[in-house]
């Protein structure tokens, strides 16, 4: 299991291809915060997002913030939510907008594996609940769109040493979640046989 540093947004798709499930990654640059209602607006209501998502790293979040002035916010506590609820947006995020990485907690179900492989995307696992640490790695909230969806707006954060993240699903068809589930199901059969 290798360790990588990746700066987002990426311009070279090879950056994604070198990552393998289980690897450790630390992220620099800019990341985009997004959540359930944000993606419902883009895909179910057909509203174009007012931010460039090509090569982007998306974070499943609804941050706790303090308002400073019109469109200006400072961080209070920023953490990450459960990804599985939003798995159906994976394919269109990659195909229509060129998103290259999605980061959340708890993993994506197996339906994400094929589109991620086809479109050259990865899923990064963050440690859910570790928001105090995550907040220190977010340097600034640079932009916010769709404030009326607060806190499920579209956020642009500048980050430094964001992580450590674990590659949960890679762009080669690998998924830690699938492997762990397969092993656990086998183990359960064994356990049930001796109960």
């Amino acid at each position: 299991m290798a360790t990588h540093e990746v700066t987002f947004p990426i311009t070279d798709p090879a950056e994604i291809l070198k990552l393998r499930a289980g690897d450790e990654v630390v992220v620099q640059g800019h990341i985009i915060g997004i959540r359930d209602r944000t993606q419902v607006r883009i895909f179910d209501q057909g509203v174009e997002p007012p931010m460039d998502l090509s090569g982007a790293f998306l974070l499943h979040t609804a941050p706790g913030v303090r308002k400073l002035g019109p469109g200006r916010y400072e961080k209070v506590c920023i953490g990450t939510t459960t990804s599985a609820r939003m798995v159906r947006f994976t394919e269109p995020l990659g195909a229509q907008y060129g998103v290259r990485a999605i980061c959340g907690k708890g993993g994506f179900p197996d339906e994400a594996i094929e589109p991620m492989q086809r479109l050259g995307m990865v899923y990064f696992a963050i440690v859910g609940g570790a928001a105090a640490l995550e907040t220190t790695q977010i340097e600034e909230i640079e932009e916010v769109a769709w404030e009326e969806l607060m806190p499920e707006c579209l956020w642009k954060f500048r980050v430094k040493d964001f992580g450590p993240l674990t590659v949960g699903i890679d762009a080669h068809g690998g998924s830690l979640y699938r492997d762990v589930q397969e092993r656990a199901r086998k183990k359960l059969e064994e356990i049930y046989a001796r109960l």
Partner: protein
Amino acid sequence: MSTVTTTDLDGAVESAAAHLYVWALKDIPQDLRDALAAAAGTETSVPGQRVLQTILRNVDVAEEEKNLVCQDTGIAVYYCRVGEHFPLHPARIYAALKEGTERATVEHPLRSNTVHTLTRENTGQNVGYRIPIVHWAFIPDWDGLDVKCVPKGSGSENMSFLKMCVPADGVRGIKEFVLDSIVGAGGKPCPPGIVGVGIGGSADYAMHLAKEAIARPVGTRNEDPLVAQLERELKDLLNETGIGPMGLGGDVTVLSVHVEHADTHMTLNPVAVNYQCWAARRASAHISADGTIEYERDA
């Protein structure tokens, strides 16, 4: 433990709620810190160890930065033990807990999570219709009030499961359902946490008991030796599944299993599972009849 005295009982309960809500979110109890450190001491998987080290670092950073451990301020849940002679009626206690929850949310400020279930519109400052949620126990021959605040995050609450097993499924049916539920939940409820299991009673009461179970200090055992044995066995079996920290694979899937039970109908065998994430936040206060508040993090 710290002590505050006030002569205004409504105000005392409101202050206690406001303080407990924020305190619980920032400063996790010692039993939980110990359990997390012990987990890091035994975990052998690389991603699992990475997760546990990050969790331990996060708990320290929360303390240094005086920030919340987790951004999910949850739904405020309070457990009240009200003495028969406590001078404030539970209707007033509820109103004061609600005021305190709102005050903490505005003053800190905390992220507000409460929405109308159909419109999904935010209803205000972590309060709303029937929110916060308060559980009551009434204690005879006593004039005190104990309040325990358990902010419950949605990641773990979404991993709640109920099955009406039949009597012929027996204890085996209970065990299989718990194992199946936790494996199915995978990394979503932020493992390793506390698995609360409620058995017996009725459908709603089993879930109520499961929720009560997660509010206990980590690793405490049920007074009934049969139930305590079930707790130990389920913990060992769950840690054989290899789900591991954040579902990335590893030795530590749960920190503890707590089971609460009630007697039930001869035709019923209900089993409910309520998960509590690794950030199993809770904080308590005792309020005396004269308005003195004593805070206790680890109760």
